[in-house]
């Protein structure tokens, strides 16, 4: 007997989902009973639930079927069942965008909104505002204003929030309700206060004076709502930033006073606001930091996370302010939440001393495999800055980084590590051999072509100068045998550099080069043949020109000049000298989270070239030879700032004057002037 029951239980099973095999067409068919009278609330409710479930799962409803279902649903307003009515409101909201003629429910909703059933009023308002347009809004304006100041909190909140949603669409109409919103702000209910404040701010945010007055009033009168306080703090900090208010401003005092609020949410918001202020001295940060320090030992993970994340930001600008928290941060290293642990460690790396580096690195390596890729990159970047700070610790870090390279990880992560190692090699000649060895090991099994070619290029540059260059040859040549075309081509170039610089290796390199000439890919064969011929000449000058020094001209510039040459064929061979030299590319923003551009950034010069070529009058001048740096012609403090860039062409000079938003170009024929 027992067995039978268990079996039945298994059939209806814990894995079963009553909605699992729902079919949209079947459900819509069922919805036809909405038209029957009397209405069966339970059944109708169940069908509506199924419809909303389907919508929620992402099921697509065509306009016709949605409209049909919507119209059928409107019949259900005849029933007085509360839950059913509520589900109707929900259905209206869910289908507002996919059904046509949804405004037919306007009168029913308006009736409910102003009716006696408080349970209906709030949701009815929200549903109504979902389907309303500007014209209709004006028709119900009176009701909305009444609702905003209604004593029932759910009604007031619903009206306020709906008004907020409608600011985008009907700002002018909603703006007329400012007084009602103001009155609602003095409500006792903590959510109503929050909503009223939010609406008032959104309506006034372009008027700094109004915002300032509002802040003044609310900071003095003391709202009770923690949500409202958080909003006030954000508004206050924004205002402080905009007006570049000093830290003796009452706004700052208000934010600082919030550090002593009873509610943790408010305290945290205040601390976070202070930390994010662009100009903050260590002394001003101190109270915020001590509050965050307390949060580090909170039992709530969210609070610890928020605290350590904010301390991490403080450490970027004011590491000394955070050292007081080092002990608490060390406790967080073993936190079960990996994000917290990672943030704790990276903060410590920024504020820690040289002696703590070893200990910290050991702790990170124990869990780095468990954290997400995003955090792994954060850790690598922290290590990178640490390497610059403590160059003597390079061996510990290098070891650690190579271990990380061996583990699994995405492209961004591996690239961050490779860049970090390359950074160390470039800064620290002592670390070069270990670094190159680690990188060689990495390319043996690297699936990212970009990284492999980058490392091969580096090997070609640095390898020949090491005491024992031959050991790198094996690694490089293995790549020629095993990898993809791009990597093989890079390997060939690297090999050539070894051959060019080390005479004793030259015979071996030539032999290897010979083998590469049999490669299946053209690029590889071409490079091999080219380098072979250059190396066989055994002339230092040729080696220098073709193997060591890369292209000294900018690639986009070269492309343009070649294109110009093909358009205007002549007997003369193409002259490399006509291509402008590469100027330094536009500096990449070096912030902690920036991604480096994948393609080569066009240099300033190329941009100028393009701009000038676009001007009709300048097209006959020929290719641009060189552009100078922008020269300030006025002092920086003057009202109008003028800068000048000099562009040199073959026989002309163009002076580009930049004045604010206006640019004036003057072209002078040099040959005539006799310069």
């Amino acid at each position: 007997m027992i067995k039978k029951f268990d079996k039945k239980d298994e059939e209806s099973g814990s894995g079963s989902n009553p909605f699992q095999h729902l079919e949209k067409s079947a459900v819509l068919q069922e919805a036809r009973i909405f038209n029957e009278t009397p209405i069966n609330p339970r059944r109708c409710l169940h069908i509506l639930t199924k419809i909303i479930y389907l919508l929620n799962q992402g099921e697509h409803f065509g306009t016709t079927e949605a409209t049909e279902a919507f119209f059928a649903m409107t019949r259900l307003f005849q029933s007085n069942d509360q839950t059913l009515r509520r589900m109707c409101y929900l259905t209206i909201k869910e289908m507002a965008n996919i059904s046509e003629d949804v405004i037919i429910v306007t009168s029913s909703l308006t009736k409910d909104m102003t009716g006696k059933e408080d349970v209906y009023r709030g949701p009815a308002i929200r549903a109504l505002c979902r389907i309303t347009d500007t014209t209709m809004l004006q028709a119900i304006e009176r009701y909305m204003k009444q609702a905003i100041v209604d004593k029932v909190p759910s009604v007031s909140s619903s009206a306020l929030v709906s008004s907020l949603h409608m600011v985008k669409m009907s700002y002018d109409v909603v703006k007329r309700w400012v007084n009602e919103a103001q009155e609602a702000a003095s409500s006792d209910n903590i959510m109503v206060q929050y909503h009223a404040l939010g609406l008032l701010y959104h309506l006034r945010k372009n008027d700094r004076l109004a915002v300032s007055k509002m802040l003044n009033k609310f900071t003095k009168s003391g709202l009770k709502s923690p949500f409202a306080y958080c909003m006030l703090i954000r508004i206050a900090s924004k205002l402080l930033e905009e007006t570049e208010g000093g830290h003796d401003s009452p706004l700052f005092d208000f934010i600082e006073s919030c550090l002593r609020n009873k509610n943790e949410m408010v305290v945290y918001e205040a601390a976070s606001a202070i930390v994010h202020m662009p100009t903050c001295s260590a002394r001003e940060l101190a109270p915020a930091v001590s509050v965050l320090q307390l949060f580090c030992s909170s039992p709530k993970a969210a609070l610890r996370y928020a605290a350590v994340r904010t301390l991490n930001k403080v450490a970027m600008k004011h590491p000394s302010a955070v050292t007081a928290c080092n002990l608490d941060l060390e406790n967080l290293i073993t936190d079960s939440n990996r994000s917290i642990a990672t943030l704790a460690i990276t903060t410590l790396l920024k504020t820690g001393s040289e002696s703590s580096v070893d200990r910290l690195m050991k702790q990170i390596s124990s869990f780095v495999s468990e954290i997400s890729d995003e955090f792994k990159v954060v850790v690598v970047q922290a290590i990178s800055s640490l390497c610059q700070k403590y160059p003597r610790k390079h061996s510990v870090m290098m070891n650690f980084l190579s271990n990380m390279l061996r583990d699994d990880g995405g492209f961004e992560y591996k690239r961050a590590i490779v860049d970090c190692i390359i950074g160390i090699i470039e800064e620290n000649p002592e670390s070069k051999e270990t670094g190159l060895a680690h990188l060689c090991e990495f390319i043996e099994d690297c699936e990212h072509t970009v990284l492999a070619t980058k490392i091969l290029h580096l090997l070609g540059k640095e390898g020949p100068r090491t005491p024992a260059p031959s050991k790198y040859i094996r690694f490089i040549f293995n790549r020629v045998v095993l990898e993809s075309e791009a990597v093989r081509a890079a390997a060939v170039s690297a090999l050539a550099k070894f051959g060019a610089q080390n005479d004793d290796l030259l015979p071996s390199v030539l032999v290897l080069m010979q083998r590469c000439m049999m490669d299946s890919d053209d690029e590889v064969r071409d490079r091999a043949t080219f380098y072979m011929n250059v190396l066989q000449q055994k002339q230092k000058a040729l080696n220098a020109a073709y193997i060591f020094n890369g292209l000294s001209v900018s690639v986009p510039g070269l492309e343009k000049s070649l294109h110009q040459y093909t358009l205007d064929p002549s007997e003369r061979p193409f002259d490399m000298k006509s291509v402008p030299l590469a100027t330094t590319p536009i500096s990449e923003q070096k912030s902690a989270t920036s991604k480096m551009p994948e393609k080569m950034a066009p240099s300033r010069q190329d941009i100028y070239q393009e701009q000038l070529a676009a001007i009709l009058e300048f097209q006959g001048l020929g290719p641009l030879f060189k552009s100078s740096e922008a020269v300030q012609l006025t002092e920086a403090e003057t009202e109008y700032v003028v800068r000048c860039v000099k562009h040199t062409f073959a026989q002309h000079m163009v002076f580009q004057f930049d004045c604010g938003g206006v640019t004036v170009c003057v072209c002078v024929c040099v040959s005539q002037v006799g310069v």
Partner: protein
Amino acid sequence: MDSQTEPSLYTVKAVLILDNDGDRLYAKYYDDTYPTVKEQKAFEKNIFNKTHRTDSEIALLEGLTVVYKSNIDLFFYVIGSSHENELMLMAVLNCLFDSLSQMLRKNVERRALLENMEGLFLAVDEIVDGGVILESDPQQVVHRVALRTFLFPSQVLQSAKEQIKWSLLR
């Protein structure tokens, strides 16, 4: 330093409930961070993978703050931008969980939830509206949802089964 974002009442990007297999039981997205269903489901899969094994409440995933809570075979998520006050997002999560706990008579698990989906829909509707936190007190939410209380079929079956089992064993 992060640039100050515009103060706004719009703080919640999404509320999600996933089951033990990471499948969607409920999802409401309040902005177009993930505009298509395909992208949404990919996001859900990603956060499920990163969070269902650990017990920690909070994480930063795909550049968004994710606060979460799990119970038996359900996973609850509230998503906000990384600039949001994490405690505010936790308040939403706790409100949702506590409201459901009351409505489901502490039976916050998949089957009970599926048998009371309308309660869930209405509860979320009372907690977050268009990305704005509407209510944070679970008592208020339960009151406003105003569901008729009736025993769920599975609870009836369960208690009957128990009774028969014991009577037979005596």
